[in-house]
């Protein structure tokens, strides 16, 4: 009897050990057979806008229209104006299980959210579900099918082999040029400008008259070349050179000699003050529009702020200078191999205990990529719809080709959108892993620190870069990042592990047996 009892106990212990492996805080989402429309659902949507009321109005109309289609779903909107604040709030709410249902975000951020157990819904099955998937038979609105989503944009939502993000809008970066001043300096612009040429023209723009005014604009202020996002700048330059940055395994490869060469080049132009950054000087658009900048690189989604006739302005009108604005691809190292970054908001869906609630969230997310929402939102800035279906819609085509005399058809914005549409195949993204957001920050930090030190007259040499690499590695914890496992099922334990655990369990049982036996002996 005692032997049977012992065997039973040891079996229980071993089984309990197996049960611990791969345990999860919440169950993975499984698509319900049917969407229960007899129930009501309250879902939350955390959305980001570019401090642009037109975008807010698109969100509100989308919600209203969706609620008309699905009267049993109520969507409450929370608005943000920067991604980092959404990111911080999501991280805070993961721990209290109070995440939103649907959230605008970057794939880099999702990689961090995925460190929680089943926090974010994997979209693999949802995308293709016959009834509720993209364009599914039970979806009540004209939704795009999976193959109608721009392939490159859909791929960007893939993390560790699974889909976790649905693209919402796409943008890239554009070079906004004061063509009037370029020509005044005696230069002609080609379709694509090289890095060498843009720095050459920028240096030429620094010439002054005897009263310390810049010759090109007659003002005391001139920063010829300003880059808004220096993380994008570094990433794009490395990509164009074919230099390493990171890989899919989450290895950090940015600290190499090509990065150093780029920084040496930038340092020279920062020292002369031909080049500056948003963090050091302020918004490129403000300087461009005041005739104090010739080359401004910013998102295509910032196009409505660019140019002396821009619909949105951040400087007093009396500071505006009249000039011709043109939109170009960012500078290139190889004009025959154009490379420009793909960016823009994506959607992720957070897992909940109630699969019906998740399905309601998915239907809303899917509605956000339907034509009406896509076209309306893309008109607010230099964004591009993420579906072929919306891009080819006559309404969108009419928007792109209409007269350029209305605010809605502001030429610079239209040109920025066309720039991306014409170059979708030239866009790229970087690998996403737990830590890729930090690496991105670090990439920008290398440029910012180099520029600041150069402007202050510090020595920029190999010792400087050695110290900078060390500082940035430490500050952004780049020695601690890792690839995302995406919380996939780890599968059964290997046989060797099972054997080892069994031996351990058996040893503990023997110890317990010996202990109780000695107690019994003593008590006798």
């Amino acid at each position, binding site marked *: 009897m005692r032997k049977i009892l012992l065997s039973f106990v040891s079996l229980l212990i071993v089984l309990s050990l197996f049960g611990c492996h791969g345990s999860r805080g919440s169950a993975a989402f499984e698509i319900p057979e049917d969407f229960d429309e007899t129930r009501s659902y309250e879902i939350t949507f955390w959305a980001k806008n570019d*401090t*642009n009321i037109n975008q807010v109005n698109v969100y509100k109309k989308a919600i209203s229209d969706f609620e008309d289609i699905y009267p049993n779903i109520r969507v409450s909107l929370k608005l943000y104006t920067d991604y980092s604040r959404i990111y911080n709030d999501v991280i805070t709410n993961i721990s209290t299980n109070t995440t939103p249902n649907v959230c605008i975000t970057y794939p880099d951020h999702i990689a961090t959210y995925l460190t929680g157990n089943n926090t974010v819904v994997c979209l693999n099955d949802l995308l293709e579900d016959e009834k509720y998937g993209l364009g599914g038979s039970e979806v009540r609105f004209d939704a795009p099918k999976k193959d109608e989503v721009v392939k490159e944009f859909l791929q960007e939502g893939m993390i560790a082999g699974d889909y976790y993000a649905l693209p919402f809008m796409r943008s890239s970066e554009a070079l906004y040029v004061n063509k009037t001043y370029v020509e005044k300096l005696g230069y002609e612009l080609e379709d694509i400008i090289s890095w060498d040429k843009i720095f050459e023209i920028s240096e030429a723009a620094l010439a002054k008259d005897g009263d310390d005014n810049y010759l090109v604009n007659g003002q005391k202020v001139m920063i010829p070349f300003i880059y808004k996002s220096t993380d994008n700048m570094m990433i794009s330059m490395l990509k164009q050179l074919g230099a390493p940055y990171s890989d899919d395994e989450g290895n950090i490869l940015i600290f190499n000699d090509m990065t150093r060469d780029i920084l040496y080049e930038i340092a020279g132009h920062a020292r002369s003050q031909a080049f500056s950054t948003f963090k*050091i000087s302020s918004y490129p658009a403000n300087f461009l529009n005041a005739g104090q900048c010739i080359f401004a690189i910013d998102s295509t989604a910032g196009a409505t702020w660019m140019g002396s006739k821009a619909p949105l302005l951040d400087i007093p009108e009396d500071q505006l200078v009249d000039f011709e604005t043109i939109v170009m691809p960012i500078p290139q190292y190889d004009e025959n191999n154009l490379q420009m970054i793909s960016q823009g908001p994506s959607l992720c869906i957070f897992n909940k205990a109630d699969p019906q609630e998740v399905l309601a969230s998915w239907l809303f997310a899917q509605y956000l990529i339907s034509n009406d929402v896509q076209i309306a939102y893309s008109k607010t800035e230099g964004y591009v719809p993420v579906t072929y279906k919306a891009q080819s819609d006559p309404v969108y085509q009419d928007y792109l080709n209409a007269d350029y005399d209305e605010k809605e058809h502001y030429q610079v914005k239209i040109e920025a959108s066309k720039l991306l549409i014409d170059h979708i195949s030239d866009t790229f993204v970087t690998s996403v892993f737990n830590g890729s957001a930090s690496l991105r920050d670090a990439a920008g930090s290398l440029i910012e620190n180099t520029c600041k030190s150069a402007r202050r007259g510090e020595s920029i040499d190999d010792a400087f870069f050695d110290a900078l690499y060390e500082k940035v590695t430490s500050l952004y914890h780049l020695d601690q990042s890792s690839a995302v496992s995406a919380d996939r099922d780890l599968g059964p334990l290997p046989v060797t592990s099972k054997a080892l655990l069994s031996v351990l369990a058996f040893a503990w049982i023997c110890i317990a047996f010996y202990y109780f036996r000695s107690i019994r002996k003593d008590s006798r």
Partner: protein
Amino acid sequence: MKKLLTVLFAVCMILSLAGCAKKEEPAPAEVFDPSAKSEGVMTYAEYAAAALGDEVVVEGFVQAAQSYWNGAKLYLQDPDGAYFVYCDGKGEDVDISEDDFAKVVVSTDYSDGWVGQGTGAKVQVKGVKSEWSGEVEIADATVTVLDSETWLAEAEDVTALLGKDELADKMNRFVKFSNMTVEASKDADGNDVAFLYNWDGSGTPGSDLYFNVSDGNATYNFVVESYLCYDGSEVYDAVEALNIGDVVDLTGYLYWYNGANPHITGISKK
């Protein structure tokens, strides 16, 4: 008799001892001088004269601060002038630990209604004098909390300087604007409203609050910075309750963004 004599002697001795005791002169109390600086530290005048890009070392008293998690931007002042210490929130621009930050603000409970009221703690700041959209600030700063008495500035009324170049001389100080009239802002639908969430109304409760006020000559745009005064704070609620035409007194820090853009921390209706 002997007993009486003994008691008498004893009293005499005690009195004589007391008479002999040298009267202790109280040590001269060290007068707290909020203008005093440590060795090697710039006066405000020296700081003001420094060129942009110069390394600076200043000391000031923390009047207010934006939330640690949003960059821990510090509003410093001494009796001679004020300083804004900038951080972009990624840990590179201001080197101040979370523990030290807790010493310079009244509360670090960042729940609804949090206000970054400073304790008046004295800090030493080493950094680089910079300018961003007209705001003169100290970037790349290292902040050390000093062992000192605290000091908080009285709000200086600068209403008369509105619209004048001299207002820039008061940049970053704790200031007051008196008898200002709330003017209409336009919301997204073109309606007249007393305030907007974000500059164009694209925000929601919790965003920065923008509102227009007039001194009778011109209209100015003021802001309640949401990282300094959270939604639910007294000033945030008060601005949300404003009506067009209200006459108000306002206090805040004279921040600059392409012109005066005060970060309002107090408001009272007349």
